[in-house]
């Protein structure tokens, strides 16, 4: 009898240690409620979709997502959530971050916690310099902003621009990126308009009226995607700015796929620079969009945020496989530096020096095709690095 008990206990102990070795806990921080709830859902679905479609690539390990709600872009709640994920849930990897202020506020905790932290959206350029454990699978504001400044001057032949931006870190970043390359190419930014915060969608009419009075060739707008973007396009059309000869341009936030169809004809003619839109013509994206619609409904669509989550989870699975389920931060970083992946947005790589993403940028124009709003790719720049860190500008310079 005694022998039998010992035998059973040994077997039990053996199986539990075995099971533990197999499980990797990923602590996800996203604004599941509040103004960012829609974004959280997109990133969350992107992550879940990768795990579902690539179940065989995850084997024999088990990835468990521990999800925490960070509620808002204030930073304070995200900091608490990240701390709790580290100290209470003992996660192996951190992931998420929709809003830049949240990633900025969490940085010291991430550094102290010594866990790999995958940023799946927040785009302020210098965030990745704030903690050595940050790896970014989304984008930097400079990817699109800097490339757009270039394209505005060279491709769109614009001489003058007004920049309107949401007054928080990525907005200022986007302004700086656009201004630098636009003015380096002979353009002139004639006015810079801060247009309220990220926490609530303002009425854009007064800001746009101001921009219209300046009569620029192009009006470069950065606002967080989502409701801000829908309001921007609506106001632009309603104030007759296109008829006044002004082109609305910006990063792809203003033509977020999830909002594009509802914008309808008002969006036609918008020109954006971004690393992803659902109409991208490549086999990987076709598979991705198809899997998404099958999973979440024919009327739903992925967007750049969903891809940030999808690719982020691909990076995490790569780490888990490389390290055979035992995730240590330093080895995980080594595994990700120079990691290449065939993403729905085209080929991507994690820059071994900056831990930020290297990817293609697409210049797109909104058109109508078969009765639906369609983003037509009119230009492409391959393997774009974050110009802010490449040129060591301001806070992007290594400390």
């Amino acid at each position, binding site marked *: 009898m005694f022998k039998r008990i010992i035998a059973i206990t040994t077997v039990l102990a053996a199986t539990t240690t075995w099971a533990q070795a197999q499980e990797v806990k990923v602590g996800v921080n996203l604004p599941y409620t509040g103004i960012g709830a*829609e974004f959280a859902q997109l990133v969350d679905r992107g992550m879940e979709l990768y795990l579902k479609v690539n179940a065989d690539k995850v084997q024999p390990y088990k990835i468990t997502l521990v999800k925490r709600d960070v509620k808002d872009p204030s930073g304070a709640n995200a900091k608490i959530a990240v701390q709790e994920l580290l100290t209470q849930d003992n996660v192996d990897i951190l992931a998420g971050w929709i809003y830049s202020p949240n990633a900025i506020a969490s940085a010291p905790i991430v550094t102290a916690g010594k866990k790999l932290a995958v940023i799946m959206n927040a785009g302020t350029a210098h965030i990745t310099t704030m903690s050595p454990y940050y790896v970014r699978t989304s984008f930097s504001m400079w990817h699109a902003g800097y490339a757009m400044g270039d394209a505005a001057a060279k491709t769109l032949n614009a001489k003058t621009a007004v920049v309107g931006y949401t007054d928080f870190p990525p907005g200022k970043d986007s302004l700086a990126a656009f201004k630098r390359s636009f003015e380096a190419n002979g353009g002139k930014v004639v006015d810079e308009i801060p247009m309220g915060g990220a926490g609530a*969608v*303002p009425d854009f009419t*007064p800001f746009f009226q101001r921009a219209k009075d300046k009569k620029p060739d192009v009006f470069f707008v950065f606002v967080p995607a989502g409701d801000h973007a829908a309001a921007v396009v609506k106001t632009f059309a309603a104030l007759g700015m296109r008829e006044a000869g002004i082109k609305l341009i910006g990063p792809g936030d203003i033509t977020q796929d*999830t909002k594009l169809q509802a914008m309808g004809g008002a969006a036609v003619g918008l020109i954006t620079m971004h690393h992803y839109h659902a109409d991208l013509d490549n086999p990987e994206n076709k598979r991705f969009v198809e899997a998404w619609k099958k999973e979440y409904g024919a009327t739903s669509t992925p967007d750049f945020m969903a891809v940030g989550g999808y690719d982020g989870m691909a990076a995490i699975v790569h780490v888990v496989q490389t390290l055979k389920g035992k995730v240590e931060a330093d080895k995980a970083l080594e595994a990700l530096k120079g990691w290449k992946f065939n993403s729905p947005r085209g080929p991507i790589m994690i820059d071994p020096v900056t831990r930020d993403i290297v990817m293609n940028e697409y210049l797109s124009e909104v058109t109508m095709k078969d009765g639906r709003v369609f983003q037509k790719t009119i230009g492409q720049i391959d393997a774009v690095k974050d110009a802010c860190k490449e040129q060591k500008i301001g806070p992007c310079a290594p400390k």
Partner: protein
Amino acid sequence: MIFGVDVASMLLGGVAAGMVLFIVSVGLSLTMGLMGFVNLAHGGFAMLGGYVIVQAMNHWGMGFAVALVLGFVITAAVSVVLERLLYSRLYRAAELDQVLLTVGLVFVMIASVTLLLGPENQPLRLPLALQGQIDLGIVKYRTYSIVLIATGLLLAAGLWLAFERTQIGAQIRAAVDNRRMAESLGINIARLFTITFAAGSGLAALGGGLGAEFLGLDPQYPLKYLVYFLIVVAVGGLGRVTGVFYAALLIGVLDFVLKKYLPQGGTAFIYGFTILLLLWRPQGLFGGQAR
């Protein structure tokens, strides 16, 4: 001439924004003035109305005008149910209890709407005739703003007539000025309050639908704009239709002008303005003497 066009388009934009504030806030002012009830869930009724209106247009194929009427009716009906079931129990309670109830109600509304329709913004597509620009002679401006101003003026005129020229309006005015005296004269305050509450919530619903073009429509709506509605009521004074009207116009135009010319600080300026104003006149710019 350019200057004139500039001023005209600025005024039109500001007045249109003010009209939305007026339509939403007037009910809040009346119910607060009448019963001293702090209804922080007022914006919730605006949101509910907006949602009904958008649903009616997008899913049941109704026209904008019909949907607005439906939004008014449904929201007013819902508000009466809530008033009888919940609000009426707390009329004599302390202000803090009222605040707790109504804030709780806001959270219930936010959660229910999120659960039913998701967290995203509800796109309200205006009829084609209301989109685009209209030429007013001196200036070309967005058609919808002009329509909004006209609608706001009509509603304000209608409310003013109802308030100043009807039996029930006289009763409301009497009750706002001196509730005890009005009660002792045999005016049924509870019934009066129910009617005002329903009408106020219905108007808020109209505001939610009419204003969706500018303010958007999502589950966070009642909290996002609560401060603006409260500012209008505080500046306009409690229980005054005309006061709320002028206050809404003032706030709308000031906010617009400051955002346009001082965007660096203009978004926060309105709060500073309200603080200074209330220090100077605690009863509001157009309110009567504090009792």
